[in-house]
C-alpha cells in the first residue's frame, strides 16, 4: 500500500436529528478498489457524497490525496462520480456529455475531441458520439456515464451502485469488466453497493456499514472468513448462528453448551471465560456430513429436509432438541442424487477454526 487516495477522519453527518454517518474513519490506498457495503440506509451513499463534496461533514475531516477538503465545492475536487441513475444530460449528445468536464476545464477543442473518442473506445461505444442518451440502452448509458467520469482522469472515481439498474447477466459481465478496467488504468475506485456478492467479486477491500457506522474493514476473504460481529457474518453470505454458554475455555479452543444435551467445539481468538454467553457462527459449506463419527468432536444429528438447488444440495439438520443447522454440499457427481436421505441419522463435522465465536 503506497500513498493514500482518500482518508476520512472521524467523520459524522447529521440531517436534522438523523445521524446518517456516525464517526467514520477509513483510509483508502492509491489504486485500490474499495467498496462501501451495507443495507439501504446504512450511510454508504452519504459517505460517498461526503467524499464527492455534495455533502459537507457535520464533524470530522475528509482528505483527498494529502489535501484537507473542508468546504471545497464538488467542482474543485479531483474526483468524479458515476451516478446511480447515470445522470446523463438528456439535452446533449453523447460526445457533449463525455466532453463536458474537459470543456468546463477549458481544454482546447481538438484535445477534447481526441480524449472523448478515446474514452468512448475504452468503454466499447465507438461511433456513438452523435446520439442522444435516450437513444441508448441502459447498459450503454452506464458505459457513457463511466466514460464521462474517466475521461477527466480523476484521482479517485466514485461509483454509486452503478450496476443497480442492469439485469443479472449484464451485471455480472460489467462487474468483471469494471474490475479489469480499474486494474488497467490504476485509478482508485470507491464503490457503493448493497450487493455482497458484487462487493466480494470486485473489491480489494470492503468496509461493511450499518446504522451509519463502519463495522469492519478488510479484504473480501477477511470479511467472509473472519467476520467481526454478528451483523457482518449475517450480511455477508449465509451463516448458522448458535447461542450458548461457554463451559470450557482455553486459548484457541472452547466448548459451548447450546442445549442441555448439546455442546459444540469452537475456536476462540481471545480468551473467553466460563459461563460467558456467546454466539457461534458456522458457514453451511464448512460443515461436512458423515455416516460414522470421524472423530470425538463430531456432533450427531438427524436430517430434517433435503433441498436440491442445482450447484448445491442443502440439508437442514436437527442437532440436540430444537437446534436446526443448514449444511451445504456441492453436487460434484452427475445424477447421483443426495448423499443422505431425509430422516437419516448422521454426524456433523467441522474444522475447529470454522466455528467462530462472536461477542456481539
Amino acid at each position: 500500500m503506497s500513498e493514500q487516495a482518500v482518508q476520512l477522519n472521524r467523520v459524522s453527518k447529521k440531517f436534522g436529528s438523523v445521524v446518517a454517518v456516525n464517526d467514520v474513519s477509513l483510509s483508502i490506498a492509491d489504486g485500490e478498489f474499495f467498496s462501501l457495503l451495507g443495507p439501504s440506509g446504512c450511510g454508504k451513499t452519504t459517505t460517498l457524497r461526503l467524499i464527492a463534496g455534495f455533502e459537507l461533514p457535520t464533524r470530522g475531516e475528509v482528505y483527498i490525496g494529502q489535501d484537507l477538503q473542508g468546504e471545497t465545492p464538488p467542482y474543485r475536487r479531483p474526483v468524479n462520480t458515476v451516478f446511480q441513475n447515470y445522470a446523463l444530460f438528456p439535452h446533449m449528445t453523447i460526445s457533449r456529455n463525455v466532453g463536458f468536464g474537459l470543456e468546463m476545464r477549458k481544454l482546447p477543442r481538438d484535445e477534447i475531441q481526441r480524449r472523448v473518442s478515446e474514452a468512448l473506445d475504452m468503454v466499447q461505444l465507438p461511433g456513438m458520439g452523435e446520439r442522444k442518451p435516450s437513444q441508448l440502452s441502459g447498459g450503454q448509458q452506464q458505459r457513457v456515464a463511466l466514460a464521462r467520469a474517466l475521461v477527466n482522469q480523476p484521482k479517485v472515481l466514485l461509483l454509486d451502485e452503478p450496476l443497480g439498474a442492469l439485469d443479472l447477466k449484464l451485471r455480472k459481465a460489467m462487474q468483471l469488466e469494471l474490475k479489469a478496467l480499474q486494474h488497467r488504468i490504476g485509478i482508485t475506485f470507491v464503490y457503493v453497493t448493497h450487493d455482497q456478492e458484487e462487493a466480494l467479486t470486485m473489491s480489494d477491500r470492503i468496509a461493511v456499514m450499518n446504522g451509519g457506522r463502519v463495522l469492519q474493514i478488510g479484504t473480501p476473504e477477511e470479511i467472509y472468513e473472519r467476520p467481526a460481529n454478528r451483523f457482518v457474518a449475517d450480511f455477508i453470505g449465509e451463516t448458522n448462528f448458535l447461542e450458548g454458554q461457554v463451559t470450557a475455555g482455553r486459548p484457541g479452543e472452547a466448548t459451548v453448551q447450546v442445549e442441555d444435551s448439546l455442546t459444540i467445539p469452537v475456536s476462540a481468538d481471545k480468551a473467553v471465560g466460563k459461563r460467558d454467553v456467546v454466539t457461534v457462527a458456522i458457514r453451511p459449506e464448512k460443515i461436512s456430513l458423515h455416516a460414522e463419527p470421524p472423530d470425538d468432536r463430531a456432533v450427531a444429528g438427524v436430517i430434517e429436509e433435503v433441498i436440491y438447488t442445482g450447484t448445491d444440495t442443502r440439508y437442514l439438520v436437527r442437532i440436540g432438541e430444537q437446534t436446526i443447522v443448514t449444511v451445504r454440499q456441492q453436487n460434484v457427481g452427475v445424477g447421483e442424487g443426495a448423499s443422505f436421505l431425509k430422516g437419516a441419522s448422521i454426524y456433523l463435522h467441522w474444522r475447529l477454526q470454522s466455528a467462530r465465536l462472536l461477542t456481539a
Partner: protein
Amino acid sequence: MKTIGVRRERRKTSWVGRLLTVHGIAGYLFLYLPIVVLVVFSFNASRYASAWRGFTLDWYVSMLQDQALASAVKNTLIVAGSSTLISTVFGTMVALAMERYRFRGKLAFDALLYLPIIIPDIAMAVMLLLFFILARLRLGLVTIIISHVAFNISFVAVVVRARLAYFDMSLEEAAQDLYADEWQTFWRVTLPLIMPGILGGALMAFTLSIDDFVITFFTSGPGSTTLPLRIYSLVKLGVTPEINALSSLMLLISMALVMLSLLLQKGGGGGIEIV
C-alpha cells in the same frame, strides 16, 4: 321476469344516452357557434350581418389600412412583449426559489403567488388603479405594463414550477462533479432543461396580455389604447365586419400561441440546448 327487467333497463339507458349526446352537442354549439358565425361573417360581402352576400377579403384589407387600429396593435405588442419578458424572468426566478429553497414565510408566499390567478380581474384592476394614483404615476403604457407583469408573474411561475417538479437534481450534481460552478451549472444544464416550461409560460403570458381587457381598461391613459380597448370602442358604434375580421385574426393568433404553449409544456422532454 328477470329478462324483462334487464331489457327495460337497457332501453332506458339507451334513451338516457341519446339525450346526453344531444345535450353534449348543444353545449358545444352554444360555445362555438358564435365563434363560427363571427369568422364566417368576416368574409361576408354585405356590410350587415343579416344576410350572406358572397365571399370577400375587403374587411381584412380595410382593417389593415386603419391608422387608429395600427397604433392599437403597436401598443398591444409593446405591452405584451415587455410584460412577457419581465414576467418570464421574474416568474422563473420565483419558481426556482420556491422549488429549491426553504425560507421563512414560504407557505404564505406560496399562497400569495396564486392570488393574482384567483382574484377577480375587476378587483385587481381597481387595486392597481388606486396604487398608481397613490404612487402618482401617470396612466399610460408603463402602468399597463406594470399591471400585466403583476398578474403574469404568477402564471409563469406556476408553469415553470410544474416543470421544475420533475427536474432530476442529480443532473445538477453531475454538472458540478464535472467542474461546472453554480453559474455554469445553471446556464448549461438547469436552464436548457427547464426551457420548455419557461417558453410555455412566456407564451401563456403573451396570450393573456394580448387579450386582457378589464385590467388594461382601468390602468390605461390617453394615447395608450390597446387592441381590446380599441375593439370595445368600435363596437359601441355598431358591429362592423372589420371587427369580425379583427376578432377572427386575434382568435387565430391566441389559439396558435396556446397550442404552442401546451406543446412546449407537454413535450420538449429532452430540454433545449442554448449554447
